């Protein structure tokens, strides 16, 4: 039971650090999801635009960022990004190092990856909107922008919620890879605690449980949002076969 003391909050307990790390994971993932939402919307727009050049560009984005291991993308942005920023600084006469902070680099990397998944989610949601409803909007004289704002947006958001829940789950786990940037998120803190105390199982299980807590909280939020958004849908459409 001495080992359990290690999880407590006293001077020898890792509880406080683990909680902080959990919050850090939450913050990184939430930031990444927001970045990904913007990128995803733009890429989905490009893929749906019908302009062959934009479509190709969108396809390259989603293929590359879904097809290349996440760790590599994080490396590219963390190190590649720093070199880029530093050389820009040099060009502008600043001597010395200008780096992307770990948090920014990590959130950006996970956000770019998450953007490739969100693009597909948004695209799927758009395609699921009934064509008839769009025509009905045209038929009363709504112009493009109004149609987008009044009819398309609200429905895309509703239809995208389950998909976004999955993307959140993916990003949550991708955020574990940001530990290579030294950011004290949950995975790294579990590893550091394990390495410092040599209690590998204790801290990996504790870390796993904290991830599960995050999952169950976010599941609850997404389920609630889905229920709310689906109040306009028939109950029977959600029953199982």
């Amino acid at each position: 039971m001495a080992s359990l003391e290690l999880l407590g909050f006293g001077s020898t307990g890792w509880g406080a650090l683990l909680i902080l790390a959990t919050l850090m994971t939450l913050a990184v993932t939430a930031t990444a999801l927001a970045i990904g939402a913007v990128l995803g919307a733009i890429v989905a727009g490009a893929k749906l635009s019908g302009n062959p050049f934009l479509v190709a560009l969108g396809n390259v984005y989603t293929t590359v960022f879904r097809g290349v291991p996440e760790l590599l993308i994080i490396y590219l942005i963390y190190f590649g990004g720093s070199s880029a920023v530093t050389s820009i600084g040099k060009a502008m006469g600043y001597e010395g190092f200008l780096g992307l902070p770990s948090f920014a680099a990590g959130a950006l990397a996970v956000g770019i990856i998450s953007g490739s998944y969100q693009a597909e989610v948004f695209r799927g949601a758009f395609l699921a909107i009934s064509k008839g409803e769009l025509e009905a909007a045209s038929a009363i004289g709504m112009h493009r922008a109004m149609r987008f704002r009044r009819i398309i947006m609200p429905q895309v958001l509703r239809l995208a919620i389950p998909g976004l829940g999955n993307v959140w789950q993916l990003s949550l786990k991708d955020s574990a890879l940001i530990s290579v940037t030294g950011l004290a998120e949950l995975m790294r803190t579990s590893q550091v605690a394990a390495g410092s105390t040599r209690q590998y199982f204790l801290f990996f299980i504790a870390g796993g449980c904290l991830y599960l807590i995050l999952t169950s909280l976010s599941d609850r939020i997404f389920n609630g949002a889905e229920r709310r958004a689906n109040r306009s849908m028939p109950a029977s459409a959600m029953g199982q076969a």
Partner: protein
Amino acid sequence: MDFTFLASTMVTLLKAVPTTLILFSLSIFFGGLLALVIVSMRVSGNRVLSGIAKGYIFVFRGSPLLIQMFLVFYGLGQFGVIRYSFLWPFLREPMVCAVLSLALCTAGYTAEIFRGGIRAVSPKEIEAARSIGMSGFLLVRRILAPIAFRHALPAYSTEIVLMMKSTALASLVTVWEVTGVAQRLISQTYRTMEVFLCAAIIYLVLNFIILQGMALLEYSLSRHRRAAPQPLKA
């Protein structure tokens, strides 16, 4: 760019591709089988079975694969019961453990994906089947499964690609696949970018092939949704 270095790196990494492919195909296969079991428990209507399935999905979807793999490989051996059981000769093998934990993890995801496919089957088509006297396995085999699989396919291709990338973690349990070899090369040469670039190209090509294959499968399974081959009669 140092092309001789890139070329020799590529050769080294390509030698690890078979390991990656074995990990990938075995875990997709066993994960898929397990997912079928779990999803049938999940939709069985039996509260105990469905509860077990829910718990399984929650745990394996909700925690990082890295932790799962660590616990399966290093954790199971801590128990004398397992170490002295008939299972140990299998569990001793790193490859078995790697495939086991990959399959356990993907089964959780895949079960959810299949369930989504099942939910998307129109209840009306099921009723039509019941109304001619179909039930049980016949109903599943002839109506439910084909329609559900078609619905689940896009999400399933994404999961397969994720799985290909997940095999990268197997070096944790001493199975040296492409990413592991790349990392080892990096700690020998410290040329991070070049080595990872080669690895990225390999994964990109593998995943591109997989996605094209899945798109082809999807296309051939969606004849009933495409525009009719012959012009519609007026």
